[in-house]
């Protein structure tokens, strides 16, 4: 799973560079994120602006990272397209994660 990270103070911005976050890529995504958690990061802005498809396994992978970072951690989700955003809304994941249109908006909201 190709990702790109950028430090933003408390938050680490993680941009997913692949178009599909589905069952076939979910494990690889979890691995990459786990590595970052092990490095000590617990607050993420997850930029999904490149992602065109996500299924329940993909959502589950993001959820598992949220569980890992625990109460002191945070995952903000940004840049969801119409269909990806739909998946979050349908499954009530938009209430589990804070969602913002862009990375900048997410970061300013959390200052």
């Amino acid at each position, binding site marked *: 799973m190709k990702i790109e990270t950028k430090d933003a103070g408390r938050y680490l911005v993680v941009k997913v560079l692949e178009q599909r976050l589905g*069952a076939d890529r*979910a494990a690889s995504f979890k691995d990459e994120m786990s590595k970052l958690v092990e490095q000590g990061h617990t607050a993420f802005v997850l930029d999904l602006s490149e992602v065109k*498809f*996500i*299924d*329940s*396994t993909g*959502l*589950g992978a993001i*959820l*598992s990272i949220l*569980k890992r970072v625990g109460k002191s951690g945070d995952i903000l989700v940004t840049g969801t397209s*119409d*269909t990806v955003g*739909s*998946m979050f*809304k*349908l*499954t*009530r*994941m938009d*209430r*589990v994660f804070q969602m913002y249109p862009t990375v900048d908006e997410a970061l300013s909201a959390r200052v």
Partner: protein
Amino acid sequence: MKAMILAAGKGTRVRPITWTLPKPMIPLIRKPVMELLIEHLHRHGITDIAINTSHLAPLIENYFRDGERFGVRIAYSFEGALVDGEVQGLAVGSAGGMRKIQDFSGFFDETFVVLCGDALVDVDLGRVLQFHREKKALATIVLRDVPREQVTKYGVVEVRPDGRVLRFQEKPSVQEAVSTVINTGIYMFEPRIFDFIPSGQEFDIGGQLFPALVAANEALYGVVEPFNWLDIGSIPDFWEGTRLLLEKQLPGFELPGREVRPGIHTGINLRVPWDLVNIQGSVYIGSGTEIGAGATLIGPSVVGSGCVLQEGATVRECILGDYTRVSSAAVLERKIISGGKCIDPSGQYLDINESQIGWIVDDARKRMQLTAAEAELWEQVMDHVMA
């Protein structure tokens, strides 16, 4: 007077609904569009109807059969061939479809009407016939006046004050449009029209036949009639059309079932604990549907028959096909559920299997079996939301 209904199209602009349902069979609340059309023809004394079919033909033919139940007599003209059990379409076009029937039996031996099978119309055909006769027309097009901003969706027609058609513009811009009257796809013809339609080749009414008539200076007329028209040629149109009907904004259209509470129409054999659910009109709830305590259903919505809304499910402004199950974890807002797809009013859609959202919405007849990933999501959602 005889009629022909064009029902052979693939309905590409109404995909994904038309992957599993031919456009004329798309239900407006409960009735297929074409049934409403046939009822209308029957009311105007038309009894003999030819219908061309191709895409998903059995779904049309098995529903209407010989038409007896609807007070009419129907003959189908199947266009295509069955190859290895699959229907391969035969592209003959709308005028080509007419010609095929005429070549077969000379069916059209008097003034006849041709309509597209995908719009709800209640035009007064008697008045159209009167106009047609007065003008001694070879062909009369039923026109409709639309707001100028809408001309970009349609075939615009320029007519002389006496009704003679001068020319056509296909989907012009607002500035380019020469008029605001559009072709409604309802035509009246004399049998002599077949002199202008060649056999054995693809030929279209709007694109080829009419320009030929204009070029030959034949009596092609257009009449503007005021009537109710619901076009379901695209997903957004179907969405808007259904909402219009639910809000009772189409005069003469009766909502099916009984109004059991203000704004709530239902079929029979429902299992709904009315005091424990939050249902706000306008909604139609189909027969045999079950709604669990704590569920929310906000209109305008159509819930098909045999549906299940589990406890705590939220459905807001949706059109649910028959046998849809909405689970407790779901929040369904402005969606059409049809043929295993979860469709947005814009036409974008998710495939329920591919997106693994069977745990949110699925066929009610399937046993609910969650994969490990789905079960985990479910638990998380329920914990989090109910907390």
